């Protein structure tokens, strides 16, 4: 779901493990809000794992404990993860606004109770977004995630809200 409608909904990537209550202040600190993008990206998740921003690679997967993305409504929080190449976010639970924002940007985000204890940092994890399935340790453990509701899956399939608006604008013309 990298913006191309109908593209695969399965991801396989290296996991970055985070604890509970990772806030939008950690994902996108307020003090850099007007700094250029490259500066802002350098500070993503800095308070939780200072090495993350420099070592994360495209296709990596963020795995976290409960209440991931709590805090403000800033869309830069999921946007920064997307810009760093994170393919999908899976957490024991997601904060409401973060979950909606991620999907609005075309970044799949799943609630999957227990995922943070099943996954080890830096191991390879497979996530099937539409099926709501997380496979850990070469099939050792299969966890079921909460299915993303159909209206949100539609947004994801279209690559996020921006392409939806472009289509709407074209229709209106």
């Amino acid at each position, binding site marked *: 779901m990298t913006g191309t409608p109908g593209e695969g909904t399965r991801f396989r990537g290296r996991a970055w493990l985070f604890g509970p*209550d990772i*806030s939008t*202040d*950690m994902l996108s*600190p*307020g*003090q850099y*809000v*007007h*700094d250029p993008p490259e500066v802002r990206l350098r500070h993503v998740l*800095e*308070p939780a794992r200072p090495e993350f921003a420099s070592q994360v690679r495209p296709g990596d997967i963020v795995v976290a404990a409960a*209440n991931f993305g*709590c*805090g*403000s*409504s*800033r*869309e830069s929080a*999921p946007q920064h993860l997307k810009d760093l190449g994170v393919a999908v976010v899976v957490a024991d*639970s997601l*904060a*409401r*606004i973060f979950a*909606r*924002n991620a999907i*609005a*940007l075309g970044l799949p985000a799943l609630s999957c109770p227990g995922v943070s204890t099943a996954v080890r940092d830096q191991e390879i994890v497979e996530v099937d977004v539409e099926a709501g399935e997380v496979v850990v340790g070469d099939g050792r453990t299969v966890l079921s995630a909460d299915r993303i*509701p*159909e*209206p*949100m899956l539609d947004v994801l399939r279209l690559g*996020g*809200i*921006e392409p*939806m*608006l*472009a289509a*709407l*604008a*074209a229709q*209106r*013309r």
Partner: protein
Amino acid sequence: MTEEPGASAAPPQSEAMTAAEAALARAAGVARVEPGEYVVAEIDAMMMHDIFAADVLEMLERTGIERLHDASRVTVVFDHMVPAPSVAAAEHQAKARRLLRRYEIDAFFEIGRGICHQVMVEEGRVRSGELVVGTDSHTTTYGAVGAAGCGIGSSEMAYALATGKLWFKVPETVLVVLEGRLASMVTAKDLVLYLMREGGSAEAQYRSVEHGGAGTDSLSLSERMTIANMGVEMGAKFSLFPADGAPTMRSGARYVATHTVDLGALSPQVAVPHHVENVVDVGEVAGLRLDQVFLGSCTNGRLEDLRAAAAILRGQKIAPWVRMIVTPASSRVYQQAAAEGILADLSAAGAIVEGPGCGPCFGGHLGLLAAGERCLGTHNRNFRGRMGSPEGEIYLGSPATAAASALAGEIADPRELVVRTEAEEVAP
């Protein structure tokens, strides 16, 4: 939707629905909705502030959306990075101003008018029974006037501006029954911190919180705003108070959980680093030395809050090692506080009074912390890094606790101060 937005004509079954369900059903144009269901709802009011307005409107421009669905429902308030602390912020705001004209948004409040949520309520831009969205998580504040308000991101706001609609999941509702009255020096902030301590985000996550019971009648609009404001810290989608004249609890409505709180039994509460749920009685942290005290924000920057602090600080001096920052929530609050001599009293006590706006609340500017520094503030979040250095510590408390702590130079229980003052007063 044929109904005029904001008309409080509720469908007949609304008694048997929670306030959140009733607001969503009305906005979706259906007789009733069930928790868990998704509805597409017409939005009554939309709010943006200076951090996101430009991004949202740029997305509309980029995607070729020529005009808004209904610009009259939109309010924009510049409150976060005001006055612009950097060239980048100034450019960002200039871009937003251009786009506001381009999209014919007339309800625009410039820097200095105040914090968006305060301005929305003061200007009557939100009314009871309405469904309101804002590009700010503390949009829950509007629950104080009976409006279902929630925060959304920039992309969803762009969609809402273009179409007037958005999809919502109907939340389950938790009922908080308030009884009795708050004791002296115990405030609405202490109540909401206590609720965080008891239920926290586990209980209210994705749900709507509704307040009822006889105790709600004793709470002023300002106090209700403090409580509804922090609803989002519990993870709640809405935090609602009954509209004026409405019954405080809806007969037949389904609540997933009910909590009863005796207001009279509450004591001053403090949230300790680095999460709003880490709440303790003030006594447990009393004596911790402070570097900074912040009185302000959309949680506690209103007239009642400034009055409470001034009542403690009038004629006194704050501890010489403490920096006390005061940010009135709006120009009206500022002017009234000036007229009452409150700003002069706070200044004479050693505080710095900043202009109306968010101030240092979100760590943008106007009073950030250095590593190792400790602040007690009346705002709503104490996440690591929220106010500057990730190595700074943020404690949250009421305006009374903040003023007492500024005076003492360390976290202090405002009730003990009262006892001392009264004793001094009766002494010959």
